[in-house]
């Protein structure tokens, strides 16, 4: 082999080795997820294992061992819309619990993936930063029925909005560690923890594209996305709305 040929062969070998290192199609596929997947989402599909194994979501056929695409779509607007293939929030998770009020189980806690991820992500941060107890009290999201697969839509007279899976109501944080209701317009306002509630709101903002927080003037909180409601309707909870992840008008 001449010098030129040996030189060219060497160059091609270097290129080949470099390609092998960088090209995925050289890497044999396996079903083992990468080591970087978090413990709550072992298939790295951005849908938590808890949501994928929640029996209320069984109609979607989600697999915690294999990546699934986000099935949920918010149609229309929060006050005039519905949800396609909504996801149900697990009733209790790291750092949060869902309270029913007078609603039957799994009828009032449906939403799009981004809303659920916001709640779960805030719950993990709430827990890891030592704020529990109490856990975050999560209330109404959108209505839904797994049997009929009807999700969202008109929810009057309970709510005018909460129609397309982008909104959630959350209890104000108590300073006595109790995981029960709190009306900050009542004498029980002495149990209101404003600093913890501010931390909670900022965890929600960090974990979701929050566009609005509606709260009571008694909350003593202000901010870029905050709107005060003086009617008293938000004295026992604050309302969080996120941006429509798939855009409006669909």
């Amino acid at each position, binding site marked *: 082999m001449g010098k030129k040929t040996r030189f060219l062969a060497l160059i091609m070998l270097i290129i080949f080795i470099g390609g092998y290192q960088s090209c995925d199609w050289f890497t044999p596929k396996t079903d083992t997820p990468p080591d970087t997947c978090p413990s709550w989402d072992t298939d790295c599909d951005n849908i938590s294992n808890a949501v994928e194994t929640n029996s209320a979501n069984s109609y979607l056929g989600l697999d915690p061992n294999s990546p699934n695409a986000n099935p949920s779509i918010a149609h229309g607007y929060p006050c005039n819309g519905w949800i396609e293939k909504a996801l149900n929030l697990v009733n209790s998770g790291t750092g949060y619990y869902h309270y029913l*009020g007078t609603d039957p189980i799994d009828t009032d806690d449906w939403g799009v993936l981004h809303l659920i991820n916001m709640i779960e992500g805030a719950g993990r941060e709430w827990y890891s930063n030592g704020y529990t107890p109490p856990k975050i009290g999560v209330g109404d999201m959108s209505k839904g029925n797994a049997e009929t697969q009807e999700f969202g839509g*008109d929810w009057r007279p309970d*709510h005018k909005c909460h129609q397309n899976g982008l909104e959630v109501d959350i209890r104000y944080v108590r300073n006595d560690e109790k995981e029960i209701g709190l009306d900050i317009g009542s*004498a*029980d306002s002495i149990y209101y923890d404003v600093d913890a509630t501010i931390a909670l709101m900022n965890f929600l*903002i960090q974990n979701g594209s929050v566009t609005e*927080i509606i709260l009571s003037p008694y*909350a003593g909180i*202000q901010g870029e996305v905050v709107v005060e409601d003086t009617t008293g309707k938000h004295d026992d909870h604050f309302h969080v709305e996120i941006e429509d992840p798939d855009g409006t008008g669909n």
Partner: protein
Amino acid sequence: MRINKTKASIGFIFCLCLLLVFTLIINADRNTTHRAYVYSIDSKGIHRLNTKTNEEKIIFDTAGLYKVSFSLSPSDAIIAVLITERGVTPPGEHDYSILPRNSLIFINPEGKRIAKLDDDVREYVWSPDGDKIAYITGTYREGKMFKTTGVYIFDLRDGSKKQITKDFPHPTMKDYIGGGYDINWAVHDSNIYIQEFEPLGGNYRYNTKTGKTEKVPYKGIHFSPDRKYYLVLLSEDSPHLYVTATNQEITEQVTSRFGYLPQSWIQDRKHHMLAVKVDYEPSALDSIGPGKPKVWKKVERKIRQKTYFVYDVEKDQIIKEWTEK
């Protein structure tokens, strides 16, 4: 002496007319009548301040109560005190087993109890003559509208109670709990107006003379004293203002001027509102740079001055203005 009967009759009629005019002037605007007492509430009680002597007295003890509010009858003769009892959540549970519940107590300006309503009163309104209240009963539901159970009239003169409506079934939404969620006893016709929550087709009017309930085409029920306009106060978004004759919304006419919509009418038989503009001292947190958290503890701002406006909705004009510092 002979009395001229014709002249006497004319004189008598003239005196009657003078008396009538005099009476009308006296009653023309109750808001300018000096009030004998002014009332306020705090965690200790309902306080009555004598405006002549400056003497203050607690006429109702609120210490230890969960939630209390009050309102005065149109003549200030009776005070209605709405009391909420705290609900109960069992240990280890997250939801109420016993819901918060309301009752309504009526007292006179000396604090003497006149009557009590144990019905779970959610909304109530005084009759224009102050002898009765119309009220909505319902069950508390955390985080959402109460469950309505009926609309009633309670007569304080004899303690009698009468149900005027129960529910309004919805033509297509089978799970909808149709019923009253807001109520108003209109000054212009003395009838009771009942609003559904975000109604689809309109609201209801109970005719106090005939006892009949009928649907009305208005989106709201809080009419101006002359009935030309009405406010929608029961809504998950901001209050709204409409022209009664056309149902045309004109909210922005007011909000563009004052930044908000006042939620009541001045009771002067016209269509005037009282708006307030508050000027605050500048605060260091007025401008927030990037990188800061998006919510923070509210800073109590010092008020520099308050300006009050009497606004004529029809003329779209401020007709009176004054400032307090």
